């Protein structure tokens, strides 16, 4: 038990300067990426100006998926080695991933509206993202519903891993289903190849999202560790009294 307390202390030391550093990087990258994407990048020859939503939508999609993978790794480490920091990391990443997924869905809807004429279309990729969003919600709901934190961490870890295995199955099924029913897809600007001039702003935005994720992850983890320390001190105070 003493060993699990020592590592969070080291983490707190590291993150004390790492988190603000990533914060600064995030601000810089967004400051470069957003104007580049929204103003200075070329318009798509098919979709015109609406393609600019892609620069917000696509990195959000990539990262919501990558964050779930991160949660899977953290869950696995937490389950096998019972490392408290891994549990905290998984829980801290979840709301960020859920927000990115939600952002992806909203921007997807906004992107599709001019093209489809409706505010939602059951496109294969959007539907997959919706299922991922529901998976995030289930994970967060399970954590909230179980009072014992250690037990919640272990059970949520099992759920996360099982969800991770299920994700490719769901994606495959949804893609199969969408090709069966053939709705149009907007999510490939300019046809099947992306204009190279779009890659610059796209990857800048992607790295900006990564820096944002790192900043928020560290912030959440620090808050969680502080909360646990306060709880532990309170319990010690109560049992000493």
């Amino acid at each position: 038990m003493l060993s699990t307390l020592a590592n969070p202390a080291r983490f707190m030391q590291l993150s004390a300067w790492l988190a603000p550093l990533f914060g600064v990087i995030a601000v810089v990258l967004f400051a470069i990426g957003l104007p580049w994407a929204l103003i200075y990048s070329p318009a798509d020859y098919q979709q015109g100006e609406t393609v600019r939503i892609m620069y917000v939508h696509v990195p959000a999609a990539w990262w919501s998926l990558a964050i779930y993978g991160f949660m899977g790794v953290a869950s696995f480490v937490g389950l096998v080695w019972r490392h408290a920091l891994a549990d905290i990391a998984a829980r801290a990443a979840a709301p960020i991933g859920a927000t990115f997924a939600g952002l992806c869905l909203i921007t997807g809807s906004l992107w599709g509206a001019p093209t489809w004429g409706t505010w939602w279309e059951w496109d294969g990729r959007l539907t997959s993202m919706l299922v991922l969003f529901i998976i995030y919600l289930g994970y967060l709901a399970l954590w909230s519903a179980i009072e014992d934190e250690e037990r919640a961490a272990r059970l949520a870890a099992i759920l996360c891993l099982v969800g991770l295995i299920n994700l490719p199955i769901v994606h495959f099924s949804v893609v199969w289903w969408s090709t069966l029913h053939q709705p149009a897809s907007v999510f490939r600007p300019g046809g099947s190849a992306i204009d190279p001039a779009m890659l610059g702003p796209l990857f800048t935005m992607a790295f900006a999202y990564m820096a944002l994720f790192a900043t928020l992850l560290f912030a959440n983890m620090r808050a969680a560790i502080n909360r646990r320390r306060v709880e532990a001190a309170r319990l010690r105070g109560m049992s000493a009294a």
Partner: protein
Amino acid sequence: MSPLAATFRRDFALMWGAGGGAMAPLGFFLGAATLVPLAMGPEHALLMAAGPPLVWVAAALAVLATLERLFQADLEDGSLDQLLLSPAPVEMIVLTKGAALWCAIGLPIALAGAPVAIALQAPLEFVPAIVLSLGLGMAGFIGAGLVGAAVTASVKRGGVLIALIVLPFFAPPIIFGSAVASGAGFGPAFLILTGCALAYAALGPIAAAAALRLQAE
């Protein structure tokens, strides 16, 4: 009597006995299916085009309704501890519980799928495929449901939470099962459904057993 036979016998008796056999889940299945024409209107052509796959939604809802008490009761009355002390592996015991649930509820619903699908205007020649695919689908739903029930066993009134957790797992069987119900017969959709259902039925108990060991701590 072997541990698995004892488990199957008791769990089947408990599920069957509670509420007059399969009457409650079947009634729920029928009721949920009735909501379809009530929502869509009884117009023949519309039901023929869209009705049959909705038997899958009704079946999924019927399974969700049975999941909440599956492990919660065992945790609350102390029977879970005894499962962990059995010579049989916990994974096999959980698989047996799932099998008992399938026999008591899954199979009756699959069979009842025939009249229900016909009522939703499925052509007669689709019905055998629908019934068989429902039987497989129920096995898949139960496999995934075991995991949801096991991780939420300690949550009071966790029925809604189970539904939320388990929904993403229900999507693939519903997608392929509905294709079968719409007339894909015993083609590729049926084969994929079989694979998916068997995978869920085989892997679900493993994850559920891991969760149950955690619940006993």
